[in-house]
């Protein structure tokens, strides 16, 4: 057996199948979302479904290339690939075009390219390389700092593009850190607590939250009264949380941009402003909610076909699925994502190298974050931060980024027995 025939036989078929299915479903829904407006030919490349066909074809070429390149390319050049993406992210700040008040795009004729979508891939490779190199010893503080900076630098560059949504995606690497033992379970818990407190602090009065926390603290103190040495830690923790809760309001009022504030307020206060920031969410919920069990049928969604939902081919593509395919369609999409994520976790765990496992968990983290936040925001469970649904939404950069990440991991998986 030659190496080439080997690779196509060895790549994981379930992931490949899920990938192709989701890309196909995505294209059908992009077509549905734009169909009524244009009613042009499928191969009309001025439409987003026409353009998406090009993106899909190039993504397939990209996937095939990744599978054919020697696996050592990724392990050995990961730092260089990371460096190239950092350069691209910096370059876009100077040479990019501004779209919707974010400067995140390079424009080539009719096609636009967003380096931040692919920068996640570079970050995953660099992180894998760093964590792989540290495999023989427990990570020291310097290593942790390096790893942290690997994620922070692209995140800050993306933030400078004023693309808060994509910046937040970098936070998803916390799962990788957690899995590799670079972060304690307590840290993950506190990260979750911080997010929960952030939202709670916006919804409720700070005093109420601090009062409740104080009650919890006192209860713990009473239970643990036999171990008085934890009291200083408990009090310190309590003070920290109190300061955090108070600082949330400050951050919210003084750091966040008005449209972000509005979107978070829509989320926590239930969409009071239906004409302004709440419009998208309201229309999105109407579209999905009116789908019922079986949906209105392909190309039959009234909200979709009459364009009530803005950005429907990209960030709100799930509305089309929800309206035209109903709860059955929602179930299908969520089932596909969960199947993909579960399969990726299984594959990641069977890696022989830390490098491969980190790339696998990076794919899991990034896809999971996009999936949870994107669908969550269309149904009012997450703030509308404008990130696409991987493999489904319109957009070449997102498709390329996800394809690169997935197929690099599939390549590593196929070659896992050769890697040590």
């Amino acid at each position, binding site marked *: 057996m030659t190496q080439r025939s080997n690779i196509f036989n060895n790549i994981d078929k379930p992931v490949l199948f899920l990938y192709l299915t989701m890309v196909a479903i995505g294209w059908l829904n992009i077509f549905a979302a734009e169909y*009524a407006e244009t009613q042009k030919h499928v191969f009309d490349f001025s439409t987003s479904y026409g353009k998406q066909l090009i993106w899909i074809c190039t993504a397939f070429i990209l996937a095939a290339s990744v599978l054919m390149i020697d696996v050592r390319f990724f392990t050995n050049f990961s730092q260089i690939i990371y460096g190239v993406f950092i350069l691209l992210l910096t370059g876009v700040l100077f040479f990019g075009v501004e779209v919707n008040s974010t400067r995140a795009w390079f424009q080539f004729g009719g096609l636009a390219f967003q380096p931040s979508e692919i920068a996640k891939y570079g970050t995953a490779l660099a992180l894998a390389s760093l964590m792989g190199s540290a*495999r*023989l010893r427990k990570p020291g503080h310097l290593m942790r700092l390096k790893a942290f900076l690997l994620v922070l630098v692209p995140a800050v560059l993306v933030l400078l593009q004023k693309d808060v949504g994509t910046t937040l995606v970098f936070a998803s690497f916390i*799962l990788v850190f*957690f*899995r*590799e*033992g670079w972060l304690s*379970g307590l840290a*993950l818990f506190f990260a979750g607590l911080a997010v929960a407190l952030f939202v709670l602090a916006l919804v409720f009065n700070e005093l109420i939250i601090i009062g409740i926390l104080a009650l919890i603290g006192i209860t713990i103190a009473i239970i643990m009264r036999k171990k008085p040495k934890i009291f200083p830690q408990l009090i310190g923790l309590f003070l920290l949380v109190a300061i955090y809760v108070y600082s949330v309001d400050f951050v919210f009022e003084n750091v966040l941009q008005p449209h972000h504030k509005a979107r978070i307020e829509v989320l926590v206060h239930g969409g009071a402003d*239906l*004409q*302004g920031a709440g*419009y998208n969410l309201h*229309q999105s*919920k*109407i*579209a*999905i*909610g*009116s*789908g*019922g*069990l079986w949906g209105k049928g392909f190309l039959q969604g*009234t*909200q979709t*076909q*009459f*364009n*009530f939902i803005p950005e429907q081919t990209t960030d709100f593509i799930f509305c089309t699925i*929800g309206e035209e395919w*109903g*709860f059955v369609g*929602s*179930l299908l999409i*969520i089932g596909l*994502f*969960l199947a993909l*994520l*579960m399969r990726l*976790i299984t594959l990641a*765990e069977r890696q*022989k*190298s*830390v490098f491969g*496992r980190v790339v696998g*968990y990076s794919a*899991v983290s990034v896809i*999971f974050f996009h999936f*949870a936040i994107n*669908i*969550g925001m269309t*149904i*009012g*469970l997450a703030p509308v931060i404008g990130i696409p649904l991987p493999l489904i939404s319109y957009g070449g950069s997102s498709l390329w980024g996800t394809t690169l990440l997935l197929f690099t991991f599939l390549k590593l998986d196929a070659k896992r027995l050769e890697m*040590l």
Partner: protein
Amino acid sequence: MNIHTNTDHYLHRKKIIAWIVMGVGMLLLVRLFILQIADPSYKVFARSNFLRHITDYPSRGLIYDRHGELLVYNEAHYDLMVIPGQVGDIDTLAFCKLLNIDVATFESRLLQARRHSRFRASVFERQISKTAFAAFQEKLFRFPGFFVQPRTLRKYSYPVATHTFGYVGEAGPNIINNDPYYRPGDYIGISGIERAYEKELRGQKGLRIRMVDVLNRDIGPFQDGRYDTLGVAGKNLYTTLDTRLQLYGEKLMQNKRGSIVAIEPSTGEILSLVSSPSFDPGLLVGRQRTRNYRALQNDTLKPLFNRALMAQYPPGSVFKLISFLIALEEGVISPTTSHGCAGIYHTRGISIRCRPHPSPVNAITGLQHSCNTYSSIIFQNTLNQPLFNNIQDAFTQWRDYVRSFGLGQYFGSDLSYELPGIVASADYYDRIYGPGGWRSQTILSLGIGQGELGVTPMQLANMTAAIANRGHYFTPHTVKAVGDPQNSNTQYALANNIPISREHFETIVYAMQRVVNDGTASFSRIPDIDMAGKTGTVQNPHGENHSVFVAFAPAENPQIAISVIVENAGHGSVWAAPIASLMIEKYLSGEVKRHWFEQRVLDASFLTAMP
């Protein structure tokens, strides 16, 4: 293989991550289940999002006069409507500029509309100008949630017969709550013919359900128009009014308070109905309606008050016609029964004055000179007939005669807001004087048309028509036919009979001719037309007496019966009779030859004298 030994003790974290992923996935599914299956409200939202219910308002029926001349018609205009739930992020400034309003007004109107309903259309701006309409039609797609609703407004050929036509206004909350046909912003007839024939005039609203996209662009009918209904145009009305006579009557009544009612005795058709002062019916149409209405309401001359149907006067001497007829029918007098008159009539402490005239008088000359003494005597004799056991029975029979002329009750025809007048009952006197504690002399003033009597000009004209018909009348009405001029109203074709023999009517008609030819109204005799009439002077405790005259002509083949009241104008012969004679001359000969006579009436003004 120490790769694994290094990381193995973190292996359990795989499960934690898997649980987080599955947990979030389940959370999304639960939420989707609630949204898509458990909660039906989003399906309603979705329908209201893209379905637009467009009401087709049919044009209101036209109103013609008795000769087929068009009097009331419609003119198109446009209302700017808003569905607050669909108002998107629009350029408020540009919008306000188009309408020429400020942003504060815009906000408050939108709020008002939202209070009414988020999903139903409210009127944002009534009757927008044609230029604003043109501008809007072009830019409507930029203002989702707004649309233009074509409507019609009333227009009038002549500024006359305002009270008869009535007016159309917006349906108020009371109407909307009680009648599901009406929606806010709909029009409804408020008074006059517009009110009485509202159901015929309004037609039937049509409904079209259209689909629109997010830019408010029309995509097409919903389900190929399966749920659409067509509007049905309102029916035309053919009234009994004679436009020439109506115009002339209003002209004669200029600068006077009072009314003229002219009826065709053979049918009960109202030829003209004048209530003065009046106003241009066009004032109560369109955007200025509310302001004009308020101004009319505050006018001390009360132009909104329809005197012809709602003013109740003691009839005065014209009531003697009925009084004499009852006495003749009861056999209390014959035409030749005569009594002397000394200029004053005394009975048990009560005295009634009379004007100087030759004495003695009989039934004919008594009426001719409007003798109060003769009237009082026959009134007392009628009530004091020995066949009655008591005054109550006697009075009740007398009262039944009076009511048979249509007095003291509603006609119940197509006249909006008529008043029934007053003819007090025996119970009423029993309550005041105690049961049976009253005598004929107690209520003596009734015999000369004063006291507890109230009649409207309409009732006086009808009474005159009944005399002209020698004993019956047809219920007065204003509409001959609905929908088609041939399709006549048959409900008023039945005669109301008066239980008094024709011969007595002939006697009274003869006396009425004498009134005109050689009596109180001789001043108003019309050359070549044999008019029968009776003057009246209504005592007015608040000022100058009211001038009253009733008449019909020609005496032998009556074609018009008329009542005229001019408030604060003095004796009936001076102003009311001339006006009635001019009206009759105009109607019967088509033109008036007595120019100086006409000019005298036109020049007269009684508005300065306070009532």
